[in-house]
């Protein structure tokens, strides 16, 4: 009898040990059932037994495309800017973004065109700083996701983009020596700068560092150019370094202007999860518009990926209100290769990797004449007008242009583009496409980003 009891005890202990072993195994290498059971359990807990995913018209290929479009992650890293994600740089950059002293007249700031109360643009057809420009101001929403900057891509990094308007006589109209002196002479700005980048060069010697100066390649007799070229090369490099660092701080701020939680993203997330109900803010007209976007209207040819752009350049044959000849990408390619502030230049913090790839292999191609950058469509519905010269005031007008190609330029015959064909959309299709584009809006940004901080120094 005792033997039988002992035997039963041993069997129970052995069984317990084997059960423990199974549990330990599941921690080392999850068994197959562990990969599925928790999901099934949570589904059972939270959803009706018979819930089926909501109906939609998309096939597997289209579904994969939609899920990818609705999955915009954080802005990509920028190794060319060592302070791109440094909060101290973002604070100084935000302070400078609103500072009208960064101009030749003391009356122009970045916000003069990129108004935070106006979705980081100005609502004008053509930009206007100290003078009117020949292209439309682009919104800064999601600017950190770009591969190229400006309509012609003449900058390859966000920080080098920020430098060009600061010296353009039609925009801020200032110069790099004056900006370096501004930082040097303002105790708060100097403190903020030196906490990020270390000691500023001593600019007190006016013979070595004149109050104003910049290179003006197309006007060698310009006083700024004369002053600049009279400086020692190493002194010019020191000023360039300060100037580049200001751009890197402004870029660190601009990287925070992100839009990636739109009604479309919620719809894509619901598709991904297999929700039983479609989100109410993605109406049937938007579903139809999305179908057209991927299909008949062929918008996705250029507006693809999670930021709705191929990041490159096209000639859409859109009519131009100006009589000037704009070389677009053809000129931009040459300028970005020549720029001393490009991603492979002496002021880049990492001239390898993608920065090297973009510049080294960039083709200078005559076919790029009059091509302009594909803009993101996120927040397009709140950043009218549209196209590189603000040619259209509404999204409806833009879609109608691609539908009929009415008024399209015909004289750019040196690069015929088979994609530029009328889409022949019906009124219902045009309205559906616009309804879809209106679901790409997420114009929320923390309030503290919409004004100048009290101090450029982050405690």
């Amino acid at each position, binding site marked *: 009898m005792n033997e039988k009891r002992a035997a039963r005890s041993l069997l129970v202990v052995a069984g317990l040990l084997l059960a423990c*072993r199974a549990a330990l*195994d599941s921690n080392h290498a999850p068994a197959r059932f562990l990969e599925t059971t928790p999901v099934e359990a949570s589904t059972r807990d939270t959803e009706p037994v018979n819930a089926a995913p909501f109906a939609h018209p998309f096939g597997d290929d289209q579904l994969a495309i939609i899920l990818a479009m609705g999955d915009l992650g954080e802005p990509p890293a920028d190794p060319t800017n060592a302070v791109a994600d440094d909060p101290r740089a973002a604070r100084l950059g935000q302070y400078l973004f609103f500072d009208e002293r960064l101009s030749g007249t003391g009356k122009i700031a970045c916000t003069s065109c990129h108004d935070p109360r106006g979705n980081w643009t100005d609502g004008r057809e053509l930009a206007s700083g100290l003078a009117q420009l020949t292209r439309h101001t682009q919104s800064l929403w999601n600017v950190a996701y770009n591969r190229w900057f400006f309509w012609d891509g003449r900058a390859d990094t966000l920080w080098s983009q920020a430098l060009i308007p600061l010296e353009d006589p039609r925009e801020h109209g200032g110069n790099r020596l004056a900006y370096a002196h501004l930082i040097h002479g303002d105790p708060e700005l100097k403190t903020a700068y030196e906490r990020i980048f270390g000691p500023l060069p001593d600019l007190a010697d006016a013979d070595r560092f004149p109050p104003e100066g910049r290179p003006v390649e197309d006007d060698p007799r310009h006083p700024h150019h004369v002053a600049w070229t009279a400086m020692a090369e190493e002194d010019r490099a020191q000023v360039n370094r300060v100037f580049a660092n200001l751009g890197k701080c402004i870029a660190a701020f601009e990287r925070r202007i992100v839009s990636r939680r739109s009604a479309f993203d919620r719809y894509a997330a619901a598709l991904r999860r297999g929700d039983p109900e479609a989100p109410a803010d993605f109406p049937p007209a938007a579903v139809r518009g999305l179908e057209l976007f991927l299909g008949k209207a062929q918008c996705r040819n250029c507006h*693809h990926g999670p930021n709705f752009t*191929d990041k490159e350049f096209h000639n859409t044959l859109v009519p131009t209100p100006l009589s000037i000849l704009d070389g677009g990408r053809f000129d931009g390619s040459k300028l970005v290769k020549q720029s001393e502030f490009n991603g492979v230049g002496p002021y880049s913090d990492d001239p390898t990797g993608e920065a090297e790839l973009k510049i080294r*292999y960039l083709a200078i191609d005559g076919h790029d004449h009059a091509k302009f950058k594909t803009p993101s469509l996120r927040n397009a519905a709140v950043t009218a007008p549209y196209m590189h010269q603000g040619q259209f005031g509404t999204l409806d007008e833009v879609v109608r242009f691609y539908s009929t190609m009415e008024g399209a330029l015909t004289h750019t015959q040196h690069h015929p*583009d088979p994609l530029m064909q009328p889409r022949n959309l019906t009124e219902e299709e045009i309205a559906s496409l616009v309804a879809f584009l209106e679901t790409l809006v997420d114009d929320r940004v923390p309030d503290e980003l919409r004004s100048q901080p009290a101090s450029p120094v982050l405690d």
Partner: protein
Amino acid sequence: MRWLVWSFGLAVLLFFAGACAAPQAQVDPQPEAQSDPAPPEDVDPSRRAEGSEGRGFVLYRPHPDPIVLNEPFEVELRVFENGSSPRPIEGADVYVSGWMPDHLHGMVLQPETTELGGGIYRARGLLFHMPGHWQIFVDVVVGRKPERATFEIRL
């Protein structure tokens, strides 16, 4: 009773042996031999293209594989001369370009090719920025005689 004691002992042994065993390490697959002059026999047909003039053929492999829309990639090319036993072509001038036949445009980048030896060449600076039908042209020039191999890719 004795068999029960042995069984128990065996269960304990199995328990500890299993629990203490290290998880199986992931072993990287052997890198493909680069110095073998003969073309591999099990090549995916879409990765082999005959030369336009019939003198040879090219094998290609992209990296990353598969090619990702709007992400830069490289291609490794193995260039062979036709014959009863195909011979790797060394010292050729090899040019690589991309083309969208439906759009009538190519890539935004101009790739550069370097020779690695043994008839193997690597091209850097490729990027397919739009979805659709792409062609990769590999122009091989030996002794001023050009030959083009074309690969078809759909993104």
